[in-house]
């Protein structure tokens, strides 16, 4: 690093992170915030499991249970899984395509702060009138008649956070289309970049449906609209449609980047090119396409009729085909490879059978006739935890561990990582495998208590014990993070002997990423240079000035304004003043952004030449 980077004080570091537009730092912000909410959601999960450890338990009250259950789902999906995916996308995608930054650095920062304030807003509800209690799906009319302001916090908090996600999605689409280095054609893009691209497209076309649904919910609750009130001609099923038109693509938004992580990890540690690269790309696109036409499989029991149910059942089962293609491609990549059992690889190997079980129960649930039996039982709970924890969470942890050296320049302790994996993996199966049987025995989901001597006692106990294993594993991971960062042992740019472009530059990369734009000669560009060249990426341009964007505090202010305005809209009366102040802050920030030219700055060639031995492009 250059002499210009000094050891900064706490205040300067804080200000840097509040104003940063650097995708690597925004990635770290997403990681920290996402992990915070992941722990919060995990604590909520522990409360649920402790409540269900024995029959007729009164560990927490029924109302509090509803709130904890709702917030567990909402937090894990919107405030933990989504930002952790954005953390990896921010940290990795620009590096994988040889870009110096994302297409819209300012918007990238705005996306983070909107997500963050939305998440804070949701959790403020704990301290003001109580948290949302209508389930993470907030089905009407329950969500309309829910008392207090809990569901208002849900609607407005997710609205703010959803704006941020939408902006992040557009940013990554344009980044990947416009900012690829010379030679980085679409069919040479690493699979993680491909899945980030497709997930961003899904975000773009799925989130507006949620935006509308949340607006309608807000208008019904706060302004007397009648969308979901049957006595005034409203229709509660509209909410279910809008929610799932968003909600089903959402699960592919979550899982596709996890598939992408495994498609990076498996070739690296099997020391083989990814088997069936083009079929992987095709399967990703096909899953995304089909993902938009299966939403009604969440609504089989609503009564849409046999024709609608059949069409959605067939479309649902069709998704098993491209997903199966992916599973076999990973297996064939492993086949005959020289496998290194590093911790990301162990996560990948644990993922394959776990996710396959989740996919299998998915096909069972996709069978419309059988779904009447499984619907709203613990079988569904088991299914979606197998795909979301067994798929998304294992993928996220594999990705976080795999790219940790690239993000922080240090290496997490491998031994602790393995311990973490086994505690978490065994705990996961203990918790959720038995829930399949609880569901088939008739235990409904979301219930506060169950009665004794109905054959449910033992499996619920097992399930709770499993949850403690998962908690222990997560604590071990956090311990690992603290110890690793405290020691701060620096590693090289390519500690895993990997294949893609991000490993060709130092860890952590300089703020401009690539001193010279890299020239990409094929799929797995670094591996090509290792096997056919001198192991160094060739530059595609002579050394020149680098244009960089300016930091800005405006995104923080814009998001803060909406956060404040949300309370005014919610509490109304004399609180309307908050809405006026909040919207004025946001609008004023937008005008400031519009009126002040922001041309960025240049890193001069001479300064770059002074930096020796940072390893970028040799």
């Amino acid at each position, binding site marked *: 690093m250059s002499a210009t980077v000094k050891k900064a004080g706490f205040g300067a570091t804080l200000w840097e992170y509040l104003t940063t537009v650097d995708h690597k730092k925004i990635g770290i912000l997403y990681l920290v915030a996402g992990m915070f909410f992941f722990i919060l959601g995990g604590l909520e999960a522990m409360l649920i499991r402790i409540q269900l450890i024995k029959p007729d338990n009164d560990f927490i009250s029924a109302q509090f249970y509803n709130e904890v259950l709702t917030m567990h789902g909402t937090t894990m999906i919107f405030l933990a899984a989504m930002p952790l995916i954005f953390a990896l996308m921010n940290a990795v995608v620009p590096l994988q395509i040889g870009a110096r930054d994302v297409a819209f650095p300012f918007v990238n920062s705005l996306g983070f702060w909107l997500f963050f304030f939305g998440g804070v807003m949701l959790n403020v509800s704990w301290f003001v009138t109580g948290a949302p209690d209508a389930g993470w799906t907030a089905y009407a009319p329950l969500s309309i008649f829910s008392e207090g302001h809990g569901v208002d916090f849900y609607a407005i908090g997710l609205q703010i956070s959803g704006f941020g996600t939408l902006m992040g999605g557009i940013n990554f689409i344009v980044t990947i289309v416009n900012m690829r280095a010379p030679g980085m054609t679409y069919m040479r893009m690493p699979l993680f970049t491909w899945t980030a691209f497709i997930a961003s497209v899904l975000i773009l076309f799925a989130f507006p449906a949620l*935006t509308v649904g949340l607006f309608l919910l807000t208008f019904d609750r706060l302004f007397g*609209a009648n969308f979901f009130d049957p006595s*005034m001609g409203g229709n509660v099923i509209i909410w279910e449609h809008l929610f799932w*038109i968003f909600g089903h693509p959402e699960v592919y938004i979550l899982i596709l980047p996890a598939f992408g992580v495994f498609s990076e990890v498996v070739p690296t540690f099997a020391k083989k090119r990814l088997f069936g690269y083009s079929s992987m790309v095709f399967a990703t696109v096909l899953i995304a396409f089909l993902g938009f036409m299966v939403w009604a499989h969440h609504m089989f029991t609503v009564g849409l009729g046999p024709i609608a149910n059949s069409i959605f059942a067939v479309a649902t089962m069709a998704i098993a085909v491209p997903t199966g293609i992916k599973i076999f491609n990973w297996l064939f990549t492993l086949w005959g490879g020289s496998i290194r059992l590093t911790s990301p690889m162990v996560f990948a190997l644990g993922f394959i059978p776990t996710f396959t079980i989740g996919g299998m129960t998915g096909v069972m649930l996709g069978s419309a006739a059988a779904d009447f039996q499984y619907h709203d039982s613990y079988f569904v709970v088991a299914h979606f935890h197998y795909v979301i924890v067994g798929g998304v969470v294992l993928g996220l942890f594999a990705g976080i561990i795999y790219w940790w050296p690239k993000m922080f320049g240090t290496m997490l302790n491998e031994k602790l990582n393995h311990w973490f994996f086994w505690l978490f993996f065994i705990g996961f199966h203990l918790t959720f495998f038995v829930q399949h049987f609880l569901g088939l025995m008739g235990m409904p989901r979301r219930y506060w208590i169950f009665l004794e001597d109905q054959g449910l006692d033992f499996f619920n106990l097992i399930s709770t014990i499993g949850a403690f294993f998962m908690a222990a594993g997560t604590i071990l991971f956090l311990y690992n993070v603290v110890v690793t960062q405290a020691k701060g042992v620096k590693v090289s740019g390519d500690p895993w002997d990997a294949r893609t472009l991000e490993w060709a530059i130092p860890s952590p990369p300089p703020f401009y990423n690539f001193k010279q734009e890299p020239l990409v000669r094929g799929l797995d560009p670094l591996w090509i240079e290792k096997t056919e060249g001198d192991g160094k990426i060739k530059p595609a341009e002579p050394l020149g000035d680098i244009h960089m964007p300016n930091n800005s505090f405006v995104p923080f202010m814009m998001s803060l304004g909406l956060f404040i305005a949300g309370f005014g809209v919610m509490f109304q009366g004399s609180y309307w003043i908050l809405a006026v102040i909040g919207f004025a802050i946001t609008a004023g920030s937008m005008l400031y952004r*519009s009126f002040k030219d922001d041309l960025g700055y240049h890193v001069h060639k001479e300064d770059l030449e002074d930096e020796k031995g940072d390893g970028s492009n040799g």
Partner: protein
Amino acid sequence: MADDMLKSTNLPQNPERATLEGRNKFMGFWFFLGGETVLFASLFGTYLALKNSTVDGPAANEIFGLELVFLMTIILLTSSLTSVYAMYHMKNNDPKKMQLWLGITVALGLAFLGLEIYEFYHYVHGYHFGYTTSAFSSAFYTLVGFHGAHVAFGLGWIISLMVRNAKRGINLYNAPKFYIASLYWHFIDVVWVFIFTVVYLMGKVG
């Protein structure tokens, strides 16, 4: 470099797409409009599901008057044309004429918005057709109101661009900004065409 961005001479053929920043904005905004399309599609779907849920309130064919809405349609379509003229002059590096046509666009937009406010006022006071009257009224005001809010936002956007750049020419920095504002203006025009058809025409005869 920074000076080049703000220089108003020797502009290329398409100044809005001449820089990487410009191309990014251009493409990003098209994708944003894709998302907006889903947003309005969801609102249209909701409206279609509830358009006959009038309960005790008035129905569509009792309140809509096509004369006013036809006038609004003509005004908004014309404003789309005038924004094209503004972009034509932008590409010819003629900032005065661009500002003039943008001004006409804004005037037409304000006229449209004024008529829409009058229309809503008329429904509320003439027909007791308020936001909370029925599911139909909620869906109507939400769909048409979302469009109206987009028009209002677009007006604020174009006006602030005009004010900010009143004393300087067209350059590679502000050309993409003008261009995407005009794209946005076309988009809300297209949405109105659908509202005119689905809400008003189908409301009268459907």
